[in-house]
Structures are given as C-alpha cells and as structure tokens.
C-alpha cells in the first residue's frame, strides 16, 4: 500500500485554520472514532485571535493497536492551540501491538501553533509510538510540549511499559531539517528503563521557536539558569565522600532542566526537564508559559 493510501486509512482527524474576516477560523474540521475534536466557540478573551482545539480519545486513552493520524494546516498569521482534557493514557499492549499517534502540521508564515497537552502515561507493558512532524516557514512560531510520566505510580507502576518512542521533527520550507529528535525508551533494547531515569518520574521537552516567542525564550533561559545554578555545587573532589552521616547519598535535584538554543539564527529553544513529581512540571509550565496568554487568549496549564 502506498503512503497516500495508508494515510487515508489511518486519517482520523484533520483541521484547517485560515483567516476569515481577519480572524483565525476553522474552515475544515473532520474527526472519526476513536478521535474527537472539541472546538469551543470562545476561549478566554475575545480580543485574542486564537482557535483552541481539544483532542479527545474515546475510551479515555489509547488502546492497544490504535493507529491515529491527524493533519493540521495553519494559514498565515493564524493562531491555533491543540490541547487535551487530561493525560493521555496508553493502555497495555495486547499481542505485542504498538499504538501509533501521528500528527502532521503545516504552519504558515507568521502563524503560531501551540501544542500543549497533558502528559502521556504508559501503563504496564504498553507499546506506544508518537510522531509529530511540522513543516514551517522561517518566521513561523511553535510551542511544543511533549512529556511523559512514569506510569501509574500509585499502583507502583514506574517505567514499566515496554516501548515509548516519541519523534518531533521540524522542517523548513525548502525541506531543510531544523530539528530532528527521537526519544526511545524500550525495555527490550535497554533493559531496565528505570535505571536510565533513576528516581525521576517525569521527562519533558518544551520547544519554543519563532520571532513571536523570543521574550518567552529569554525568560525561560533565565529561569532555568536560576534553578540549576542553585542546585549545582562546587566540585567536592573524589567520589564516595558525598554521603551524609546516615550514609545516604546527598540527594540529586528533584527538578532538573537545561536549555539549548538551536536553528541557524539561534531563534529557537529546546528545554529538557527531568522531575520527580508531575506537579512540579505543571507548576513550571504554568509559570513559564503564562506570558503566552496575550497571544493565546488563555494561559496554558491553568
């Protein structure tokens, strides 16, 4: 089966946003089971020009073997937000099937696309592959939050899934790759995933790209530098003198983050976070993405 035919089979949703009468408007919206889009008529201030789309999965999550493809097209100067109503639960894999969720988005010139979902939570033995591909113009703006929690930690499920693979690729107009990132956590290949992430329960990536987001990027860099500089101490020499009196290791930071600038003009930022609680990441996102309220109409993660 050719790619186009495969796509048609898998296509569960598509949305096109264009300027109509000077306002970002949904000119095309399609979704079918198990995916559903909810597009409220008004979100936040009516002065802001932004379309908010809530993506829901029937059944509250992604079931083993689900194959979901969504295509979005955002016209020049438009603003669109894609978010969820709760964390995306990926249920256990049946017969080793892998669930796939693929998003392809085309973002126009001077447009802003914000993908700000709740985190993904993979249950024990789940197999999940997520791919997000963005085709952007040189002055497009992107906010992408992609994050995963360790599982149902109340039940003691920590990093107990079989496979999690998350791809985020950004291409410029001429097809040049701007950002190619794949994270793979696979039990079979790595053994114990828990060993790789230690006591951290949440892994997050926050990406901010484009001229409209310079201010938010600068604030983010300052904040992360501030948080980490406090945590990192002067080197204390040889190993094994870093235990306290009780013999326990001096604790690692419960929230760790670092920023990297990328792109030829260095106008993009990617933040990597590892945290021991989901709450601390929600708080971080709330605070750091609050300045987006003026562009989106509502602050993310409130």
């Amino acid at each position, binding site marked *: 089966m050719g790619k186009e035919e495969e796509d048609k089979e898998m296509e569960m949703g598509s949305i096109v946003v264009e300027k109509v009468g000077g306002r970002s408007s949904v000119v095309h919206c399609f979704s079918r089971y198990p995916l559903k889009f909810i597009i409220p008529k008004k979100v936040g201030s009516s002065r802001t020009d932004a379309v908010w789309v809530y993506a829901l999965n029937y059944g509250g999550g992604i079931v083993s073997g689900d194959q979901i493809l969504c295509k979005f097209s955002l016209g020049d100067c438009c603003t669109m937000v894609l978010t969820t109503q709760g964390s995306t639960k990926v249920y256990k894999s049946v017969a080793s099937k892998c669930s796939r969720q693929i998003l392809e988005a085309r973002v126009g010139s001077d447009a802003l696309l914000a993908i700000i979902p709740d985190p993904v939570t993979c249950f024990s033995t789940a197999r999940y592959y997520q791919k997000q591909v963005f085709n952007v113009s040189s002055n497009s703006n992107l906010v992408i939050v992609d994050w995963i929690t360790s599982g149902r930690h109340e039940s003691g499920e920590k990093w107990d899934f079989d496979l999690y693979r998350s791809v985020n690729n950004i291409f410029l107009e001429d097809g040049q790759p701007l950002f190619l990132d794949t994270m793979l956590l696979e039990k079979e290949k790595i053994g114990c995933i828990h060993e790789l992430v230690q006591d951290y329960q949440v892994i997050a990536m926050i990406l901010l790209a484009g001229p409209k987001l310079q201010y938010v990027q600068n604030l983010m860099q300052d904040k992360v530098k501030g948080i980490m500089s406090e945590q990192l101490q002067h080197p204390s020499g040889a190993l094994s003198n870093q235990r306290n009196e009780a013999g326990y290791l001096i604790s*690692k930071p419960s929230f760790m983050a670092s920023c990297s600038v990328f792109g030829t003009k260095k106008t993009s930022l990617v933040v990597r976070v590892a945290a021991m609680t989901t709450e601390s990441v929600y708080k971080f996102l709330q605070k750091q993405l609050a300045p987006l309220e003026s562009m989106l109409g509502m602050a993310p993660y409130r």
Partner: protein
Amino acid sequence: MQISEGCNNGPCLASSISQWSQWQLLDSLLPTGGFAHSFGLEAAVQSHLVSNPDQLKTFIIHVLENTGSLLLPFVHSASVAPNLETWHHLDKILDATLTNEVSRKASISQGSALMRVGSAVFSEIPSLKTMRNASLGSGTVSFHHAPIFGLICGSLGLDSTDSQRAYMFITMRDVISAATRLNLIGPLGAAVLQHQLAPNAEVILEKWKNRDVDDACQVAPLLDTVQGCHGYLFSRLFSS
C-alpha cells in the same frame, strides 16, 4: 624491502601500513582535543547523579548506549560512502539531530580538529584535504565529529563495523579519561574499568550498529538533561 618471509606482494604491506594508521587514529596522542569534553560527567557529579564508582560505571554505560543509538548511524553511513556529498548530507542531518547545544558544540569542535589533523596526517589520502578545503568557509558545513570520523575510517580502509567499534572505543576512552581528570578514579582504576567495560561496549555495538540515520534516537533523557546543564556549572574543568 622485505616485510616478512611469507609476504611477497603489495596488499600485505598495504594492510600492515594501514594498521599503523588505524592505531594512530585511535591513539589519544592524536591532537584532536577530545579531552576538553566530559560528556556530561562533570555536570552529573556536581548534581550528585554520580557519587560513587558504581554510578560512574552506570553513567559510562549510558553514555555508550546513547552513542550507539544516536551517533553510530552517522559513523556507519560515512564509513561506507566516504565522499563529499555523503559527508555534507550527514553533517546537515546531525546538526539538526544534536539538539543538545553542549554536545552539538563539542561535536563541532572535535570534528573540526579531527578533519584538520586527519587531512594533514593521512597525506596518502589527498581527498581528505580537498574535501576539507571545499567545505571550509562554505557556511553550510558544521564539521560534526561522527560523520568525519566515519569518513576518515572509511578512507583508511576500515570496514563499517570496525569503524563503529572504533568510535565506541574513543568515546569510552574519553569519558574514562574525563573521570580521572575529575579525580573520580585513579589512572590504574581507570585502565581496569576500561577493560571491564569492553564487553559491555561490544554488546552495545552489536545492538546499535549498521542503522540508518533516520533511526537515530536518544535513549538516555536524563543524560541529555544533565549534559545540557554544563553551562550552569559554577566552576568547571571541561568545556562540556
């Protein structure tokens, strides 16, 4: 000139000479500046992620694992097609793939040094020099390390598996060297550890070798995060 009794033609001499080149490429004496980089170890120590010898060993294994998953595809592809077009293509993809600014800069600095040294040292491969000159000042080539390493290995006649194993070797060599300079382990302990980890490195090589660059991925998110913290260190020994 007689090399040995049983050796009476060109290829035998050529393969012996190429061993000298291969060993020189892997020798830490080659001035490529590998020792300016700690692979995130310095930041890991200062954030207490690595506080004892066991954690050091685990850290090194994770670095090797991530090298395998993320960088071996570039070494592999370059070694099987050691030409200008392939090199430039891989360099561009790797620049977009190394999303961690600290490791991206380290890759560029090591790659540039390796290309400069390699084209000067291995003068029997004039294409290295011409490729280098054609790429300097183009503004579009970053001179990333893994593709250049693969390019030189391929040009020296190393097969792809050996090239990838060699890349794993120098990565392990450099992290362990960083550990001694950070005073985490003594020189003898470092040598013992390096030998102990060789079987791990071989398993990791088998797992991740000969993959396409489209499949390049990160498998150690904590490592990526902590390595990115290098710039926040109050006092540091290494550039990354």
